[in-house]
């Protein structure tokens, strides 16, 4: 935890204690709120300390104190937002909802370990027959959850309102929450991969610091120049999962799955070319042989000229970097359309109680309304998943006037495709198989074709045979 986060937590704890002492009256004192341009945490509210560890429930009862009527329905909302990543926004949104809907009380619960951790805890809760009403489900779990968990399809939750509701999303984003033509939740957190650029390093190499390379071929050339003129690394695409694997393979004309989604397709010549390209970056010393945990601090330390990852990393980078980095579009392979896997989460409903489902539906509608999305986007660095917020001065319009590069991930929204989920009950293991094969190929341990062929055979066998 950074010192600032720690101080914030301490301040939060202090103000929570204060609030408790005052019997919940009065507004929370604003804690140290460093308005860094990226995620611009708008409202560091009192209990930012609450999510320091484990799964912590925070009843937002302070907001309810004024309304006399007791809520008829209490529902739980599970999220992965840490104090440094969106928790203040979650608290503000839940408080606002509770204020608006006196008949419903939403309690939010932080889940440690991101989407994997949340899914693990969700399993325990489902087994205990006490699932949360609403939970953030990572896009990489949509298929698995919808096929294995007792999640309630959105049309069942929405009654007759679904069609109307989905109007708020661009068509390609509705697909993010779909499996087999059923919409399983409301797309909520959204990001697409971007390029972070160190303009100082580009300048030191004699390159134009204002113009980031637009294609992978240009990235390679620029990286070569950076290496030969400064001795530093040119580029590091995120390695930790298959988010970037998919962006590279599909951006080079390949596909992860066959058209019907039931078989693997990631060993096509196009896919091989994409991974080969990536491998050459490492082999030629243009990209470091390093994990993300090593490479990202090296980027902010000024040792790597460009790195491709999520826009959500922006506030962390801003705290670490001593230079003013820039955001640039994710590169294309020359002659191929860009296809960017979605990052973020879908809000899904798990409660089987019809009354609670109704309350959850109200909550979903509120959370994906323009005003709520504005708070959410400002507090997290996510992209707005709904139409009509980015140009409207009531919502995000002014933000972009002030920070034009924040618009980069928005301009790419049209290129967003679902983050591929692998079929069947063993789908999650396929992720690992592909990741291992890709890493073996990137390190030169195995020939690219052999690595992808091997992974594909293994994966197809695992999902139940596919010739």
């Amino acid at each position, binding site marked *: 935890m950074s010192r600032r986060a720690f101080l914030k937590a301490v301040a939060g704890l202090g103000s929570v204690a204060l609030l408790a002492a005052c019997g919940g009256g009065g507004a929370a004192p604003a804690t140290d709120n460093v308005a860094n341009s990226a995620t611009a945490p708008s409202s560091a509210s009192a209990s930012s300390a609450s999510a320091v560890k484990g799964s912590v429930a925070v009843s937002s009862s302070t907001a309810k104190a004024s309304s006399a009527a007791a809520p008829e329905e209490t529902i739980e909302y599970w999220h992965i937002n840490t104090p440094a990543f969106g928790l203040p926004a979650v608290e503000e949104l839940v408080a606002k909802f509770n204020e608006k809907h006196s008949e419903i009380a939403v309690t939010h619960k932080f889940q440690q370990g991101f989407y994997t951790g949340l899914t693990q805890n969700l399993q325990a809760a489902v087994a205990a027959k006490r699932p949360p009403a609403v939970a953030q489900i990572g896009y990489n779990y949509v298929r698995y959850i919808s096929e*294995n968990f007792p999640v309630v399809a959105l049309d069942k939750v929405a009654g007759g309102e679904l069609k109307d509701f989905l109007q708020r999303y661009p068509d390609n984003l509705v697909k993010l929450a779909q499996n087999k033509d059923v919409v399983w939740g409301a797309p909520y957190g959204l990001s697409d991969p971007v390029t972070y650029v160190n303009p100082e390093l580009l300048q030191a190499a004699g390159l134009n610091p204002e113009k980031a390379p637009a294609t992978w071929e240009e990235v390679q050339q620029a990286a070569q120049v950076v290496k030969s003129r400064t001795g530093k690394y040119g580029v590091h695409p995120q390695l930790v999962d298959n988010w970037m694997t998919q962006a590279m393979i599909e951006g080079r004309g390949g596909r992860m799955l066959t058209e019907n989604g039931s078989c693997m397709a990631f060993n096509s010549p196009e896919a091989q070319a994409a991974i080969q390209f990536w491998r050459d970056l490492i082999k030629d010393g243009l990209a470091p042989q*390093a*994990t993300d945990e090593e490479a990202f601090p*090296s980027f902010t330390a000024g040792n790597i000229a460009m790195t491709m990852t999520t826009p959500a990393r922006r506030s962390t980078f801003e705290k670490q970097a001593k230079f003013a980095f820039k955001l640039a579009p994710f590169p294309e392979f020359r002659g191929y359309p860009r296809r960017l896997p979605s990052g973020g989460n879908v809000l899904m409903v798990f409660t089987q109680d019809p009354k609670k489902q109704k309350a959850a539906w109200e909550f979903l509608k509120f959370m994906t309304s323009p005003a709520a999305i504005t708070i959410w986007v400002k507090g997290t660095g996510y992209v707005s998943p709904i139409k009509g917020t980015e140009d409207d001065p009531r919502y995000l319009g002014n933000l972009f006037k002030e920070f034009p590069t924040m618009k980069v991930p928005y301009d790419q929204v049209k290129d967003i495709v679902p983050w591929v989920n692998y079929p069947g009950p063993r789908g999650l293991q396929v992720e690992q198989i592909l990741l291992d094969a890709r890493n073996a190929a990137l*390190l030169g341990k195995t020939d690219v074709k052999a690595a992808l062929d091997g992974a594909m055979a293994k994966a197809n066998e695992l999902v139940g045979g596919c010739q």
Partner: protein
Amino acid sequence: MGRWPKLTSLWVAVSKQDRPAAAAAHLAEAAPGPRTALARHHPALPADPAVPTRRPAARRLAPYFYVLPAFVALALFVYWPLGRTLALSLHDWNLVSPSWRYVGMANYSSLARSSDFHAALRNTVLYTAEILPLAVVLPLLLATLLAGVAGRLRSLNRTLIFTPTVVSFAVAAVVWLWMLNPIHGVIAAALRALGWQGPAWLSDPAWVIPAIVLITCWKVAGYNLVLFFAGLTSIPTDVSEAARVDGAEGWALFRHITWPLLTPTTFFVLVITVIVASQDTFVPIQMLTQGGPDQASTNLVYLIYQYAFQFFDAGHGAALAIMVFIAFLGVTALQQGLLERHVHYER
């Protein structure tokens, strides 16, 4: 050379005498070997004439009542989960679905064929082989050397070496992540200053296990050192004094006095280190490499975690856990059988 048989017999003679109680307790604490424990804590109760005679049934049942609290705790938290794990290993279950699907030995057979299991098994052996010298031999040597250092310096040294043990492993992993960074870490910088290009510790399949071993040993060696210290302190000075009078110095003193009297401690340290080697490496694996690159740093414990909580495949996870349980049972039994013969417990 002629002196040594005499020394040995002296040691045997001395060791048969009663020790000062404090030293003995110390040793027993450091090395709760089964025989020591039994000999000390169960001095044949029923035969003792001082114990008043009770009704035979009550007397027969009494021991069971004594062990009952411990047994209940063990049964609840160890044996019951173990039994459930065994049952689960014969089923297919995703941790959510209401029913377990019986699959017989299929989980075991598919694991036995899978390459990630082979990699994890191989790595577990590698980890253990690399951790033992660093976490057992090194602390043993350090403890022996430090025992010769006087007063303040000794406790300062001991404190310094023990400090990593109390540092949170997660924090330690992050500190090492920073030091091992191949691009701008201090170790890479130091190697570069010497004209070497350091390896990409955590993303080079050849270096990732040594790197995690280094982190783990840095963390656990201090604890073992303190155990050895306790063992060394409990060696009665009269024995070593007598040996010195007989002319034993340095290596001879270690070989014939210190080492034999330290064997219970060493055996204990060896057994726990083999077992914790695969568990203690979990945190750095999880935090730094997630088993990668390409399973190069995974081990059996991490693989159990992956199957159960990443792939949500509880059946395979349970089967793996049972296999690991049996393997470690075997290794411990082997240690017991082969090595314990060389252990000198004091009577």
